[in-house]
């Protein structure tokens, strides 16, 4: 497969403005495939308004099921299950699908082979068209495990689409947090853009996500959103960035304009100069970093 450059936007803390910034970049960047890897709470579609949406089921872990007709009521599965997933309901043994981890211990131990493991459809992934380019996203079924596999699938489908269309860049809206879905989103990235906010929670989560990025040895740039709500914390972030050898590539002021545009599902950078200027800075940094290779 040809060399595809991946830019991923992450945040540590949720709600810092990742999706808004990704959409704004999608509006000004040429030739790229756009990916929403925040499969737990996929929101990019609201701003990109996709059409020609083609969906595919995604299967995940298996869940145990007890065959009532074969069950010997020996209680062994309930005793062995470490996740408390075996209940007795109306005097029958039943597996709680919300607690079952899919380990299969009950199936292995059952003396009468009354238990089988069934694969579950845990989500759906989509390929679509938008005015900004091809857009790949997914939706996890509420309650399902978010292990990162659906993220990996979405990125892989995006790479296949990129190959087909002879495009060499992926713009990825990443998930919040520091768990598996984030690891899946950043693995293979050429550049990570960390969107943070000057709050104590924001700073704390920025530190945790920076640790994750260093572990993967990925170049990063930091964007401080709503920087003017706390200038002291903004300075703290700038100091932190210097210590880590990361650049603060944009500082976006808090703005009523941005909030109002989002409320109307419009791209805020088209109407709010304070944002568009900063998004251009971010894009400059992207071009600079990726050209250096």
């Amino acid at each position, binding site marked *: *497969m040809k060399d595809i450059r991946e830019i991923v936007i992450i945040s540590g803390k949720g709600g810092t403005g990742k999706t808004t910034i990704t959409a704004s970049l999608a509006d000004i960047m040429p030739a790229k495939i756009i990916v929403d890897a925040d499969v737990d709470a996929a929101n990019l579609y609201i701003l990109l308004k996709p059409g020609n949406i083609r969906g595919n089921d995604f*299967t*995940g*872990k298996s869940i145990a099921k007890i065959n009532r007709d074969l069950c010997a009521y020996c209680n062994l599965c309930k005793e062995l299950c470490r996740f408390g997933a075996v209940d007795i309901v109306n005097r029958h043994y039943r597996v709680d699908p919300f607690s079952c981890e899919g380990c299969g211990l009950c199936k292995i131990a059952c003396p009468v082979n009354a238990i089988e493991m069934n694969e579950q459809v845990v989500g759906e992934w989509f390929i679509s068209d938008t005015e900004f380019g091809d857009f790949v996203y997914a939706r996890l079924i509420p309650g399902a495990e978010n*292990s990162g*596999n659906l993220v990996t699938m979405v990125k*892989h489908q995006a*790479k*296949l689409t990129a*190959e087909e269309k002879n495009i060499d860049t992926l713009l990825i809206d990443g998930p919040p947090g520091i768990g598996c879905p984030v690891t899946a989103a950043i693995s293979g990235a050429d550049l990570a853009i960390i969107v943070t906010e000057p709050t104590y929670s924001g700073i704390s989560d920025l530190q945790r996500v920076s640790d994750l990025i260093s572990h993967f040895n990925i170049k990063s740039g930091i964007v401080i959103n709503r920087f003017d709500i706390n200038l002291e914390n903004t300075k703290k972030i700038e100091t932190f960035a210097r210590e880590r050898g990361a650049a603060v590539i944009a500082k976006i002021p808090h703005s009523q304009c941005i909030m109002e545009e989002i409320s109307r599902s419009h791209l805020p950078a088209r109407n709010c100069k304070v944002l568009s200027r900063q998004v251009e800075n971010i894009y400059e940094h992207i071009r600079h970093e990726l050209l250096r290779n």
Partner: protein
Amino acid sequence: MKILFAVETNAGLDSVMDSRFGRAGYFLVYDTDEKKVLSVEENRFKNEAHGVGIKIASFVIESGCRVAIGAQPGPKAAVILEQAQVKMIVNDKGTVKEALERYKEELTV
């Protein structure tokens, strides 16, 4: 000596290399002494939810291959292959024939 190729299609030496290792479509085993394709198997692990690379690495070892050629494997598969002293060559371009040529060239460098 046996070499394993992680391929997308099942077309003997014309099989196209897959862009993924763990979730490749098929695994082709080639014997360099007998100079022929010994087997092509569909990847039955490709839909595993977790740790597919681990299953693949075990499969490579069981097949008796000393070399594996394909896309970059995940870190876990890579470490298993290393422990098992199987040489991993990252090359997912072209066909098996082309990858084999390249492998032979690099041996003689």
